[in-house]
């Protein structure tokens, strides 16, 4: 039986606000899933807390809606112990860049075979509109009535700094671009980090209009070709090029790079650990183990 997008819709009522960018991302992911060529039972979506974290409830796969920020840790345990599964983490900017920042960087560093979709709306939605670690400085919100004073993270630079082997960016409403990035992320063996600009139409509406609406500002990256007028020739295997492009913003260059910034091969954590298990010396004889060392007989 060939699966379709419909086969990946669960029976749960989707409860995001009408007009939320999450709908478009959910639709794009459900449409892409059949391309994986896997049965649904082999796919697992794991999330933390926040609006984006409701994602697994809507996927007709295995799923876990877990704890704020901890999805990469939980997914690490699952992916490491079950290399037969396709494990996806859906997270947000508060979830994985604030409370779960530690787990994100370590999952990337270890190169665990998980796909991380970071739905970045630059705001805390589910707690009703406080500024997030990706909000621009000066953001006026309920918790920052005089404007936020802290500087934001650049999620792509952070992921690159953690030595992520796959780093990409897409837009919620750009279905072809998003699908291509999902395809590349799925094909990547190891940790894949995808930032998806996502519009929160309630608390941060229009945050990405400069690239959602103004399509001329989109700079689609192509491996081996000059990246627009940035002066960088894009090379997915060149860390310096990827990092330089991660710093290109609408403010600095008037464009927003989209697509795959970095894609390199490095053995994944789960593969390396599996190899250690396969090569471990000994026959797993527990009776011999408990009777090892200096022993003595009584009676």
């Amino acid at each position: 039986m060939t699966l379709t997008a419909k086969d990946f819709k669960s029976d749960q009522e989707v409860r995001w606000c009408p007009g939320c960018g999450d709908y478009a991302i959910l639709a794009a992911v459900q449409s892409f899933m059949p391309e994986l060529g896997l049965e649904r039972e082999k796919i697992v979506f794991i999330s933390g807390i926040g609006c984006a974290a409701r994602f697994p409830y809507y996927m007709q796969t295995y799923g876990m809606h877990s704890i704020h920020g901890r999805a990469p840790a939980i997914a690490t345990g699952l992916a490491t112990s079950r290399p037969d599964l396709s494990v996806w983490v859906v997270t947000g900017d508060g979830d994985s860049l604030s409370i779960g920042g530690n787990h994100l960087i370590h999952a990337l560093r270890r190169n665990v075979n998980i796909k991380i979709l970071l739905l970045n709306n630059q705001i805390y939605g589910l707690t009703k509109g406080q500024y997030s670690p990706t909000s621009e400085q000066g953001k006026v919100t309920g918790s920052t009535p005089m404007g936020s004073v802290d500087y934001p993270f650049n999620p792509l630079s952070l992921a690159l700094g953690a030595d992520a082997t796959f780093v990409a960016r897409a837009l919620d409403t750009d279905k072809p671009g998003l699908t291509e990035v999902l395809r590349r992320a799925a094909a990547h063996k190891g940790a894949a980090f995808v930032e998806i600009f996502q519009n929160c139409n309630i608390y941060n509406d229009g945050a990405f209009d400069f690239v959602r609406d103004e399509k001329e500002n989109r700079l689609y990256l192509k491996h081996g070709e000059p990246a627009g007028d940035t002066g960088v020739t894009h090379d997915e295997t060149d860390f310096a090029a990827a990092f330089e492009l991660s710093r290109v913003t609408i403010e600095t260059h008037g464009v927003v790079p989209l697509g795959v910034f970095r894609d390199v091969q490095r053995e994944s954590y789960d593969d390396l650990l599996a190899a250690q298990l396969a090569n471990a010396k000994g026959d797993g004889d527990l009776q011999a183990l408990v009777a090892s060392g200096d022993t003595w007989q009584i009676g």
Partner: protein
Amino acid sequence: MAKRVEQLESVVIRFAGDSGDGMQLTGGRFTSETALVGNDLATFPDFPAEIRAPAGSLPGVSGFQLHFADHDILTPGDRPDVLVVMNPAALKTNLADLPKGGTLIVDTDAFTERNLKKAGYDASPLEDGSLAGYQVHAVQLTSMTVGALKEIEGVTAREAERAKNMFALGLMSWLYGRPVDSTLEFLEKKFAKRPEIAAANIKAFNTGYAFGETSESFAVQYEVKAASLQPGLYRQITGNTALSWGLLAASKLSKLPLFLGAYPITPASSILEELAKHKAFGVRTFQAEDEIAAAGAALGASFGGSLGVTTSAGPGVVLKSETVGLAVTLELPLVIIDVQRAGPSTGMPTKPEQGDLLMVLFGRNSESPVPVLAASSPGDCFYAAIEAVRVALTYRTPVYLLSDAYLANGAEPWLVPDIAALAPIDVDFAQPNGEVFQPYARDPATLARPWAIPGTPGLEHRVGGLEKANITGSISYDPENHDLMTQLRAQKVAGVQVPALEVDHQEGADVLVLSWGGTYGPVHAGVRQVRAAGGKAAHAHLRWLNPFPSNLGDVLRSYERVLIPEMNLGQLLQLVRARYLVDAVGYNRVTGKPFKAGEIADAVEALQ
């Protein structure tokens, strides 16, 4: 000339020296030799958290106490009969524990002006008469060691000096007639890459042994005959090793691969290190970025059908509590091991306490019941680990297993278990049956929900931290449903089948001593002392702290007085008084050291 041999029933020896003096190694080797004699034994390694505190200082003193006997014993001993001190600081910190008339073996070479000053002595206690009440053997231990090693090529003066602990071990081995072959083999193996160091240590050991034989200072050699223990093959074991192997056994019995998520923390790290050695058993050990990730990864593995375990001590367990809460509501198996240490906060990392009981019972938001059990001795950690896993898997619940720093590092003889004789742990993953899968339907007997692991076709489902509708598992904010689910989770844990409490009753006793966890040895030894002195006391030891054994209330009510000794300020006491309305009293001390049998006996006698 052969010396007189005197029979002893039991001996307590304490080795004390600087952290760099190798006291733990010395104690460990003496323990191994003693085990081979067939004595019953118990050990108490007592060392500072600092790896190398300033040499010669009081905080840098490291000790190892060993009790061995020709009969079954329960503790490392209240007070040493023999104290071996390698420097003035060790004398200063340990002398108060040595009863008058006790044997004191001193390395006089270490009693320099500088070392005396560091230990706070104005005058040398070896010369001012302050040791008059003890049997002092002043031995030039360092200089004799260095002198004996002169002829060994390639050994520096510093290396020769460092072998003095083997001189001391050799001397003690002679004094108590210990077999020496295992130590000689051990030294050859340990220093295989530096044969000259192996030779130096062996020479130092033999010199110490010969010194005992020939020196006039030691007129008598002692013998402690083998104890009559249950027949079988024995080895010695520490709590953390037993616990690690218990997890391996549980993995085998349940046929589930073991996944351990852990973050290094004293005194639990050696479980991670032990299990990391056993990848041939299919064990995956994951050293996480923090305690939270360690628990999270274990739960993720459990979701995938592994046996998920996370290990820590109190300061790490607090960080795991959100994951434990998630496991409560996901109703997935997870074993959390808390090797308790003295607190609060960082506290005293290498010292035992029982202060985490209320934390593991109640330290989570809202109503989130978790079964809790505690190991009672180093060897028991093996069986307690299996039991924790059995309950976690059977009832799909997180389970807390409590150990402590004393059990973790203490050693005792251990009857090697027959693995084939251990009861299997049946795990039935949910399978498709043609009907719509209901993730929160329950087994009527255990109230456990089905465990449907990814990869099972047709059972795709979502679980999460939000409240779930009964049976379907869909998100639910329905008030009655939340009340029902809260009750069901509580009933499931309350219904965990645990063995009835056994009482070591004594005819005519109207005092019951109720203990739990790592205090079993000293508490039972204290009760024995009471009985030996003509008093009467009953003793019961709790393994399960949640749920309590169903007969606990009846047991408590059948005694006029109940004494609950705990290394905390009365945590079990509070629970027992609240639950059973019994006017129990506590005996509570938190010194960072295990209870002494004598203080328990005194507390019992005060109630008579």
